């Protein structure tokens, strides 16, 4: 268990995240078929395959740079709502690592907080509208609560909060994105973007724990 990640470790972690997302394409697509247009999996695969490539070429200057490179790759390759949302999360969130040598719990909490802020500004959605924000917002809260402790603990606790957030989206009626017009019919289904976000955190958690 590492408590502060070097830029190289952050890069390896994001490469592992990328592989995990790419491997989840079918599950994510299926979820989007239920309440969206059925392309979330293939979109995330495009974006995170690019992240894996970008990580191989990332120059390890800093954790901020590594996260920003990941965000740039997502933004450039994913397309759709997910590309803008996850690209914004990584690019805006990366600023939380500016001036920090490595990635620690406080940095991680800052990443989620600043990422959340930017995503809300970008898309205008708020918690409760059945988007990835419903996993991101509770994760940000949990990480802030754990910001004084270990990185492993902060990420674990954020991932658990995100997973709960995913469950909570089942009870929400979508009011943004392509699920918007489903109305009540969106009840009972989880939000695909929220699932993707949670997979990202869970995969970070597993990397750190390993």
């Amino acid at each position: 268990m590492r408590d502060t990640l070097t830029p190289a470790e952050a890069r390896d972690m994001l490469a592992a995240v990328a592989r995990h997302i790419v491997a989840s394409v079918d599950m994510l697509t299926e979820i989007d078929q239920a309440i969206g247009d059925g392309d979330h999996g293939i979109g995330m695969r495009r974006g995170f395959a690019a992240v894996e490539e970008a990580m191989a070429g990332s120059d390890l200057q800093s954790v901020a740079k590594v996260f920003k490179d990941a965000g740039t790759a997502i933004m450039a390759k994913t397309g759709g709502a997910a590309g803008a949302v996850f690209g914004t999360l990584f690019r805006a969130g990366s600023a939380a690592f500016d001036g920090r040598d490595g990635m620690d719990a406080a940095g991680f909490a800052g990443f989620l907080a600043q990422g959340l802020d930017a995503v809300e500004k970008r898309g205008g959605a708020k918690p409760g509208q059945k988007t990835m924000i419903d996993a991101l917002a509770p994760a940000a809260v949990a990480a802030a609560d754990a910001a004084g402790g270990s990185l492993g603990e902060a990420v674990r606790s954020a991932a658990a909060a995100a997973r709960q957030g995913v469950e909570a989206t089942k009870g929400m009626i979508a009011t943004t994105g392509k699920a918007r017009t489903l109305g009540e019919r969106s009840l009972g289904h989880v939000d695909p973007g929220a699932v993707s976000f949670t997979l990202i955190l869970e995969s970070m958690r597993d990397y750190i724990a390993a």
Partner: protein
Amino acid sequence: MARPKKLLNNPVDVVSELIDGLVAASGGDLQRLGDRNAVVRDRIADDKVALLIGGGSGHEPMFPGFVGSNLADGAPCGEVFAAPTPDLILDTLHAVHRGRGVLMVYGNYAGDNMNFDIAAELAEEAGIVTRTVRVWDDVAAAPLDRITDRRGIAGDFFVIKVAGGAAAELTDLDEVCRVAVKARDNTRSMGVALAAGSIPETGERTFELPEDELEIGMGAHGEPGIARRKMTDADAIAGEMVDRILVDLPFQSGDEVALLINNLGATTQMELLVVTRRVHQLLKERGIAVHRTDVGSFLTCQEMAGLSITLMRLDDELKRYLDMPARSFAYSRS
């Protein structure tokens, strides 16, 4: 339901390949933006306000089929049902810009809004002025008091046609934008789906509809509509759709309109024409005059069976730009 059969190569390359086909068919009128998934006109007049349109692919001929003379100047094409990336939008924007700014017209979807907004911010940083008109013509997508939550469907075409005409004549970006907003604000649509389309890369239909039902208000990606009905006759469905469209603007006796009957993909022209006939009858009964009618494939949803009805209320200005000659892959008029 069986997976639709498609004549494709590797579905991952489908957007790139369809753009090659479009450029080849254009006989030189269109250029591909390097090896990117975007098309731009071969010649764009100096000093012209540029019109940029775009969105996810899979809706052909929308958007790239409407890049042409007196229409749009360029279109970035996203992957199937996915908004184009900011990078692609920005590069296309640079390619069409001629110093007088760029009007961006696209359908109102979270993905498109965010990606085009990011591109617009980057363009601004590079000193290019942009304006945005989001099309939200689908009356089935949200109530009127939340009109900005509505989706853009086939009404995109009318807004593009009018904006294209305005951009060819007017030299001021804000003026072109004003005309496009007017077109958008006077346009209303609704669709009906009988069977689902599919995404090439997954091969799966985007929704399931029982054998004996249709869905009124279905969106262009298979987003749910407002009512499921047992299969019934064309006149009944057309009547219900026209009622919901007319009441929304509202269109009134004495109005003059343009009518668009759009094939969502796999519907026969026979069906489109039967509905065209009925809509004309209904509008006549209501005292609404039809200035012109377009029938065909404008914004499709892969092999979705169904159609949409769009009305745009006209004034002299809208009529003038709508009637201007135009020439592109999907729409030519003298």
